[in-house]
Every structure is written in C-alpha cells, then in structure tokens.
C-alpha cells in the first residue's frame, strides 16, 4: 500500500481527494453478493431499463464505501471511522470513477478521544453523486498523542 500523509496531521480547512474506480458491472455483482443487496437494478441491464434507470446503477452503499476509503487509507492503522453519514444525490454507473473530496471541518485535539471531523463530497467528473460527513478517531491514547504531536500537513 502507498504510504499517505496521516489524517491526524491535517489542519482544519485542509482538503484532499481520493479516486476509486472505474466501477465495473462485475464489481456490482460482487458487491451484491458481499452486501446481500440483490436488487437487480444493480446488475441486470434490462431490468434496470424497465425500472426507467437507463441501465444499471451502482449500489449507493458502494459509493459510501469509496467515501470511507478516502478516510481509512489515511487514518493510520489505529485510526477508525466512528461516525459516517452519506446522502446519495445522483446515480453512479459502470465506467464511472468516483472522486471523494475530503475537507477537515474540525479537530478534537483535547478530547478524551482525539479525532477529526470531515465533510465529504463525491463526484463523477463534475457531477456530485453524494455528500456526507464523518468522524475519524484514534482510540489508542499513546498513539494518538504521537500522531497529534507530529508535524502537520495542510
């Protein structure tokens, strides 16, 4: 895995983006199996056309997984997402690459559970497909102190 700057070192207002994709129909079949969401609008073209969707659309929850990955890839091994919420605005389709823009909205340096809050915005090209918020925490106190004592980015 590529080593990325640790999220704990980001200042309020700093932004970064992370891309996942392109989504494939095979991936949607895999995701249907792994998540248990077998709605055919996600992998059966004719069914999705009949549903007036113009073809298959990705599971919203797959987009949310991509949004989370933008965080977990940078949370360090002991950082974890404690809260995450997403609202789906527009369909994602096979061939689409989803880019998540993360903006750090606040830091909780002095909290018993240090962490950061982020705003999330997911795009396909310049079309926004989802928006959300998340909190990433570092439950290990000693490790958190080390993280937060280090050099900051942003």
């Amino acid at each position, binding site marked *: 895995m590529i080593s990325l700057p640790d999220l704990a070192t980001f200042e309020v207002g700093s932004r970064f983006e992370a891309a996942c994709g392109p989504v494939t129909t095979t991936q949607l079949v895999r995701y249907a199996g792994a*998540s248990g969401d077998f709605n055919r609008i996600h992998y059966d073209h004719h069914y999705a056309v009949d549903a007036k969707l113009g073809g298959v659309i990705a599971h919203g929850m797959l987009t949310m997984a991509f949004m989370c990955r933008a965080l977990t890839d940078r949370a360090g*091994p002991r950082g974890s997402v404690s809260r995450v919420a997403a609202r*789906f605005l527009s369909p994602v389709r096979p061939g689409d690459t989803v880019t998540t823009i993360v903006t750090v909205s606040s830091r909780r340096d002095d909290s018993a559970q240090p962490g950061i809050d982020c705003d999330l915005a997911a795009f396909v090209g310049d079309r926004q497909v989802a928006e959300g918020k998340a909190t990433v925490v570092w439950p290990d106190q000693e490790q958190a102190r080390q993280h937060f004592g280090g050099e900051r980015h942003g």
Partner: protein
Amino acid sequence: MSEVDRNLVGTETAPFTVEVERGAIRRFAEAIGDNNPIFNDPAAAKQQGYADLVAPPTFATSFRLPMDPPWIANLDRRRIMAGETSFAIVRPITAGMVLTCRMKLRAVEDKGGRKGQMQLLHQDLEGSDANGDIVFVSSRTTVYRPAEQSLA
C-alpha cells in the same frame, strides 16, 4: 399491491444473530476494491492491536435477515433506491464477533418531487455484543420512487 404499508411504522424485526466471519469481511473488502491490510490480513490487523480482521466502516450494511423485512418485502424493487445512510460505530467490528441485530421501521415520510410523490422509509439497524453493549447503530433512508418516474 406494492405501496408502502404505514401500519408497519414502529415495528421491528425479530432479533437476528450475525457471526462476523473473516471470509465475509474479505469478500466485502474485495467487492469495494479495498486492499487495506487490516481488512484483508488477520496478522496485519492483530499487529495493529485488533482482535482479528477488521471490517470496513460500511460492512454492517451486509447484516440482513434471510428475507427482506416486512416493510420492504411487498415493494416493487424497480422503485427502490438508496437515499441516505449513517453509521455510528462504537468500536470497530472485527471477525469473530457475534452480534445481535435488530431492524426497525422508524418512520415513513411523503416527499413530493417533480415527477410525483415518493416515500422515504427511515429504518434503523443496531447491533450489540454478547454483553448487550451496543457495537454500532445505523440509519438508512430508502427512497420509494413513483411508479412512472424516470432517471434515465
């Protein structure tokens, strides 16, 4: 008959048990294309202080009853779409956990759109461990689109 049954608002499913398996976590990580070692390699997860393989944050979406809950069962799948989802994760879900889950239909909301009336089904899912301590809480809003609405 494929309209939302409002009489089910406030009802919940029988509790169901989820045994969190390594294979299920790995398949989920593979499906979302996430090669993070703590989601894929138990040794890497343990090295970081976790009890076992860690589940990605949205993994609890896979915690389902064998059949759809009663408020979904009669609906036309072609009209169902994801609206919103949230998770509050009290502690990371790891392989080997045995969780007792409950799913509830909290509310149904009418929403007028350009192309007709849609219904929003607000559902809650929570999971607790053997001690009865809550491990995660999730809310999901499912959109039930008007029969004639096109997104093409």
